[in-house]
C-alpha cells in the first residue's frame, strides 16, 4: 500500500471524487473552509482514514512553460542570469543575502537563518515547486507524499502527507522545514518541539504568492533565481490584466467553477481571484470558500462558462443535472477542463493557471 501511494499517485487520483475537498486542500495547501469543517466534525472518525488515503491523490501535470531548472540551468543561473541582464544593477543589488537573517513566518514566529539552508524539507506541493523553481534540487532532502512536480520531486524521500511522518522528518536533520497552510499551527509547534526549524507560508492572494517566492529567494540566497520566477509571473499577470481591461463591461462573462464533484469555490480562494483577475464574474461570488453546489443559485446566475477540474469532475454529470440544460454555458457547450494543480497550488505556476483560465473564458483575447 505504502509504495503504491508513494510511487503512483495517479492510481489514486480519482479519490477526489469520493471526497469533497481534502485533495484540493492538500494540493493548494489551504486550510479547510468553515463549511467544510462542519462536515469534518461529522466525520472525524472517518476523516483520518480518508485523508491518509487521499494524500496521494494529486494529479500529474505536464506543463511545459514553467521555469523548471535542470541541473545545468541551475548552475548557469547561479553564475550569471542571462535573461536578467537588462536589469543588471537592480539584480546585483538584491542578489546577495546577508546572514544571519531573521524573518517572521505565517505563525508569527521569528526564524533566524545563520546561513543558506543546506538541507531542506518541504511539506506541500506548492512549496516544493517553488524550491525546485529556484534550483534547489540538491538541497531538498524530503518532500510530502503529494508532491509530483517537477518530475524530480517524485524521487525525493517522502515525509508523509496530511499525517506527517515525524520520524522521517527528524531523521532527515533538515536545516529548515517549509510548510504551507495545510500544516496547521499545532503541528508546526510540535515539529518545533522536536528542535526543528520550521517556516510556514500562508499566502492569500496572487501578490502574496509572488512575495513569498521572493522570500524563498532571500532565505536560500537564490534571489536572482527568485526574481526570474517572479518577473515571469508578473509578466504573465500583466498580460492577462491588460487583456482583461480591454474587455467591455457588457461582454464580461459569468463563470461557474466546479473543482470537486458537487462543490464550488467562492471568495477567499485562489481560483476566485483568478476569475476576477481574468475580468470575469464568479457565479458563486456571494459565497466564501468551498460550498456544496446550490443548483438554484447557479441557474439564476446563468453562467456563460463552466470551468471544471480535469482530475475529478466529469462534465457530463454537470450537463445532466436537472434544470441545468437552460444554463447558457450548457446550452452553448462552454465547459472547459482546467489543470487542477495549476490553479490550486500557490506556487510558481499559478500565473500559468491564470493564463489557462483566461484563455478558457475569453478565447483569442490574449495577444
Amino acid at each position, binding site marked *: 500500500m505504502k509504495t503504491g501511494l508513494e510511487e503512483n499517485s495517479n492510481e489514486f487520483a480519482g479519490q477526489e471524487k*469520493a471526497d469533497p475537498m481534502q485533495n484540493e486542500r492538500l494540493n493548494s495547501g489551504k486550510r479547510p473552509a468553515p*463549511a467544510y469543517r*462542519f462536515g469534518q466534525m461529522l466525520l472525524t472518525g472517518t476523516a483520518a482514514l480518508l485523508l491518509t488515503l487521499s494524500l496521494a491523490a494529486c494529479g500529474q501535470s505536464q506543463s511545459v512553460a514553467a521555469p523548471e531548472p535542470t541541473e545545468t540551468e541551475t548552475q548557469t543561473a547561479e553564475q550569471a542570469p542571462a535573461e536578467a541582464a537588462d536589469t543588471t544593477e537592480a539584480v546585483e543589488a538584491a542578489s546577495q543575502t546577508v546572514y544571519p537573517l531573521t524573518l517572521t513566518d505565517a505563525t508569527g514566529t521569528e526564524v533566524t537563518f545563520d546561513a543558506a539552508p543546506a538541507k531542506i524539507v518541504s511539506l506541500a506541493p506548492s512549496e516544493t515547486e517553488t524550491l525546485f523553481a529556484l534550483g534547489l534540487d540538491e538541497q531538498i532532502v524530503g518532500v510530502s507524499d503529494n508532491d509530483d512536480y517537477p518530475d524530480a520531486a517524485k524521487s525525493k524521500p517522502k515525509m508523509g502527507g496530511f499525517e506527517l511522518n515525524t520520524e522521517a522528518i527528524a531523521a532527515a536533520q533538515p536545516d529548515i522545514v517549509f510548510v504551507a497552510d495545510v500544516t496547521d499551527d499545532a503541528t508546526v509547534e510540535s515539529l518545533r518541539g522536536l528542535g526543528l526549524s520550521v517556516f510556514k507560508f500562508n499566502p492569500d492572494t496572487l501578490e502574496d504568492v509572488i512575495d513569498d517566492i521572493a522570500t524563498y529567494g532571500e532565505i536560500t540566497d537564490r534571489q536572482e533565481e527568485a526574481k526570474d520566477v517572479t518577473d515571469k509571473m508578473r509578466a504573465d499577470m500583466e498580460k492577462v490584466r491588460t487583456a482583461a481591461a480591454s474587455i467591455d463591461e457588457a461582454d464580461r462573462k459569468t463563470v461557474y467553477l466546479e473543482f470537486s464533484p458537487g462543490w464550488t469555490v467562492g471568495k477567499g480562494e485562489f481560483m476566485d481571484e483568478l476569475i476576477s483577475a481574468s475580468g470575469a464574474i464568479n457565479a458563486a461570488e456571494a459565497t466564501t470558500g468551498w*460550498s456544496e453546489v446550490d443548483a*438554484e443559485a447557479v*441557474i439564476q446566475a446563468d453562467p456563460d462558462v463552466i470551468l471544471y477540474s480535469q482530475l475529478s469532475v466529469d462534465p457530463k454529470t454537470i450537463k445532466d443535472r*436537472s*434544470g441545468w440544460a437552460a444554463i447558457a454555458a450548457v446550452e452553448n457547450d462552454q465547459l472547459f477542463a482546467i489543470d487542477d494543480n495549476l490553479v490550486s497550488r500557490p506556487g510558481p505556476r499559478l500565473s500559468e493557471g491564470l493564463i489557462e483560465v483566461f484563455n478558457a473564458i475569453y478565447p483569442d483575447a490574449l495577444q
Partner: protein
Amino acid sequence: MIRRLGGYGGAGVLLLLLSLIFTLRIGSVELPAGRIFSILMHELPGIGKWFPRIWDAGEAQIVLKVRLPRIVLAALVGAALAVAGAAFQGVLRNPLADPFTLGVSSGSSLGAALIIFFGLRTALLGQWTLPLTAFVTGALTLAIVLALARDRGKLPIYGLLLAGVVMQSFLGAIVTFLSALSDRPVNEILFWTMGSLNLRGWSYSLVLLPYVLIGGMFLWANAGAMNLFALGERRAGQLGLNTERTKMTVLLVATLVTAAAVSVSGVIGFVGLIVPHMIRLIAGPDYRLLVPLSALGGALFLMWADTLARSLLGGTEIPLGVITAFAGAPFFALLLQRSKRGKGGYGSWTG
C-alpha cells in the same frame, strides 16, 4: 376505523399540500409566491394558457426541475422509511426497531455504494440494479442482525440495538474505505453516511415511486396481521396466523422499500422511528391506521427536514441525516427510557 382513517388521512393530505406550497417558496433564490403559482399552473394542460409567461426560463427551471422534484423525492423517501419502520416495529414487536437502528439502511447503502464504485449502475437489470442490490445487502444485514440478537428464540430490545450498532459501524467503515479507494465519479462520502437529496431530479422519484406504492400497499394489507403480532407470536399463531411466513414477507418487503429509498438518498436515520411513534400517540396502536398514516407522516416529516437542510445555513447544505438525527436521537433516548421502565405497554414488547 374507516371513518377515523378518513379523518386523519384527510388531515394528513391537507397538511401535505399546505407544506408543499410553503416549502416550494423556500430556497436560496427568492421567488414570489404568485410567480411560483403561475409557473406551476402554466404546466397544467388545459388551463395553462390562462397563465402567460411572465418569468424567465431560469425561474421556471428552478421551480419545476430543482425545487419541486426535490420536495417530492423527500416526501417519497420519508414515506418509505416511515412505513418500513412501522412494519419492523410491528412484526419484531420492538419499539426501537427502524431501518436505521437495525442496520438495514447501512447495509443497503453498502450495496448501492458497491454498485456505483464499480460502475455497474445499469448493468444486468437496468435502473433496477441499484435498488435491488441495495435490497440484497440490506436483507443480508437484517438477517445477520437478527441472528446476532436472537437469544433463545427471542429478540431482546438491547440485543437488537447492539447488533444493529455493530453492523452499522462495520458497514459504514466499508463504505468509507471503498470511497477512499475509488477512482470513479461518485458522490462524496458524506452522502452515503448522512444522506442528501441535493441535485436530484425527477428521475429519482420515478425510480422510487413503485417501491413506495406497491411496497406500502403490501405492508398495509398486512396491518391486520401486525395487530395480531402485538398479542405475542404464540397467541397470533393460535388465532390462525402463519407467523413465520408473515414475519418473513413483511421484513423482506420493508427491507426492499428501505433499500429503494437508501439508494436514492443515502442513509437518513430515525425517520422510521419518530414517525410511527408520533402517529401512535395521535391515532393509537391499530396498525391498519398506523401504516398508511406513517406514510403520510413520514412524507411530511422529511419534506420539512429537507427544507431545513437546504435553507437553515443559507446556501450551505446541511446533510439531511444531521437534521433527522437532531430530532431523532433525543426521541430515541426517550423511547429507550420508557421501554426500560416498562411504561406505556412497550415493556411487554421485549418478547
